Each structure stands twice: as C-alpha cells, then as structure tokens.
C-alpha cells in the first residue's frame, strides 16, 4: 500500500481531527441523482466550539476583561514566563514579512499577556498543546546557553 507521508490529523485534540474529516464525508463527495441519500437529521458527530470572534456583548466584555488584566506599566520582573514569550515574539516579528518590528511598548504588553496567560491557563485547554510545544525548544535553548 502506498501510504504517502505520515497521516496528518488535527493540530490539537485527536477527536476534533475526527470531526474535520467527518464534515467532508457528510458535505462533500460525489452525489448521484439516481441514488437516494440517508436522512441527515440527528447527526451524531462531535460538536465543535465556536472560536471565531462573534460580535456580541459577551465577546466585548470578555475582551475588555482580558485587556484589563494587562498591566501595561509593569516591567518584566512581574512575570516569570516572560523571557520565553518575548524571545518567541521577537523571533516571529523578524521572520514574518509584514508583522513589523515589535516596539518597546509591545514588549511591555507581552509581559502583561504572559501574565494573563498564566492566570487564564486553566481555561485554555484546547489551545495549550501548540503554545506549549513551541515554548519547549526555547526553554531547551536557554538551558544549553
């Protein structure tokens, strides 16, 4: 069997990777008018959480709350996870074509965000795997220096 590069599935949880495929099985593929299709009422597939920003009061308040948690004036000393985050963002700023250089102000914000990250860690189960994976090499690099 000619299996091409390792099957890639999802970026985070395996179960939602499943959803990604089932969606195509249900909504795409050849339809032949001479055949009938089974009813799709009551589909038993995984639900996904809505993560795209929806304009709503709830969203606004949530964002405002996230911003209010930022301490824009505090220095790096207030946050422990900071050096990694700044390193990461600086790196991406340099690599990204249109990201623009991060200003000093932006770095200060990064302090605050890393703080917010720590505070909000409990709620961030879905999006944790990737950031954690990204931070790991940075940490390793520091240790080796």
């Amino acid at each position, binding site marked *: 069997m000619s299996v091409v590069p390792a099957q890639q599935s999802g970026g985070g949880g395996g179960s939602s990777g499943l959803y990604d495929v089932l969606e195509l099985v249900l909504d795409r593929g050849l339809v032949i008018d001479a055949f009938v299709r089974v009813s799709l009422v009551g589909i038993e597939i995984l639900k996904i959480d809505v993560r795209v920003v929806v304009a709503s009061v709830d969203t606004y308040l949530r*964002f405002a709350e996230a911003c209010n948690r930022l301490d824009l004036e505090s220095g790096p000393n207030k946050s422990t996870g900071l050096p990694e985050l700044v390193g990461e963002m600086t790196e991406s700023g340099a690599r990204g074509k249109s990201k623009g250089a991060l200003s000093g*102000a932006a770095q200060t914000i990064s302090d605050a965000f890393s703080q917010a990250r720590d505070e909000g860690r409990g709620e961030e189960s879905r999006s944790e795997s990737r950031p954690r994976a990204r931070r790991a090499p940075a940490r390793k690099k520091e240790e080796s220096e």
Partner: protein
Amino acid sequence: MSTYVYGITAGSHSSLPEELAGVGDPARPLRTVEGGGLTAIVSDAPEGLRPKRRDLLAHQTVLSEAGAGGSVLPMRFGSLAPDDDAVAQVLQERAEHYRERLAALDGRVEYNIKATHNEEAVLYRVMSENPELRALAESNRRSGGGSHEDKLRLGEMVAQAVQRLESTDADEVRRQLEPAAEAVSPGPDSTGWLANVSFLVPRDGSARFVEAVDEVRKNNPHLELRVNGPLPPYSFVEPGPAEPARTPSGTVAAEE
C-alpha cells in the same frame, strides 16, 4: 435490500484490502459491482442507516484504503441505490464522465486545512499594533476596569480588530498554500474556523505541501492550523478541479 455505495474506481482497480468493514452494526462486508469498465465499491445497506460516527468513519476508512490502491471517486456519505443492478446501470450510463474524473484525480489527494487564532497571541498582536487600543485599555485599567460602557467600547474595538485579522489571515493561509496545490476548494460552511479550505495535492507532492503548512505555522505564531490528509478527494469530485490554484477570488498574488 438496497445497496450502499462508497465510491467508484477504474476497472483496473486492484482488489479491496481484506477484512475491510463497511457501514452498519455489525459491519456489512464489502463487495464490488462492475459496469461500463468501472467498479463501484458497495455493501448491503443496513436498515435505518443513520449518520452515526461509526458509520461515517467506516465510509471514510473504506475510501482511504481503496484510494491507496488507485484513483477513487468518493461518494458522499449515505448514497443508496435500490440494488446492485441500479449501480451497474449508472456506471454504464456515465462511464465516460466518471473515467474522465478518475483520470483527473489519479495520483491526487485532498488536504483540508482549518485555521483558528490563538486568542492570546492574537490579542497580544492586536494590542501591540494599535496604540489607541493600548491607551483605552490603560485608561480603563486606571479607573479600576472602567464603566460598563468603557468595557464595551474597548471590547468592541478589540473584537473588530481581531475580526479584521481573521479575514486577512484567511486570505493569507489560502494564498500561501495555493502554490503547493493543484486546486483549491472552500470547505463546508461550519463555524469555529477563520479558514476552512481543501487543497488538491499530488500524492508525490504531499511532503512539499506539508512543508508549506509548517512554513505558514512558523511565520504566523498566532495561527493554529489543523491539517487533515491525505484524504480521498471529496471536495474535487464534481466537477473536479474546477478552479485552478492560481486564480483565487479577490486575492492578488503579492510579492514576497
């Protein structure tokens, strides 16, 4: 008993993998129906078949396995013919069309990409790029969080900035991956993604496509990309690779 149809392959398609389970509980054994020089992969249709997860997965697995042995036109889930003869008749009547599609999709697989924002990283970026927002947030913070109206105003501005970024990033993801694909098809409408796009990729170009995805990830740490593939070319069966990869709607190839 009606016949469940999984997909259509060229007549020369090699035999199905042994022990491959079809839909239903217990899983119905697979068989083939021939007509017009083509072969349909089918099984008995269970009574009262519903789109249960197990059945959707069976459909998907059969097609993935069959696709590994040669070009397959995947049927949408739940296609039922009255009987095997009806399947053979359809194959005969439309043999030319299906053969053309099979040839067009031969050696090609689908990769589906879904993108979301890492909210934290996105807020970070939005704030870092927008002094006005920073000032507003700072002012709110000084007054102990600000009034309800203050919060709404800040939140709305942040939400708008994030939404603009969602739209830009959706275009960006597509634009950056198109060069590694032969065709592009927007994914099914579903919420939760800022981008949901399928790409038709030559099997032997899969590594290149995956590299392109990694590159997008590397250049956009605020984006989370979910990659699913190689898949049977669900999104490209009809009318096939409709849209050349190089003619995206509304996006102009920007200089790198």
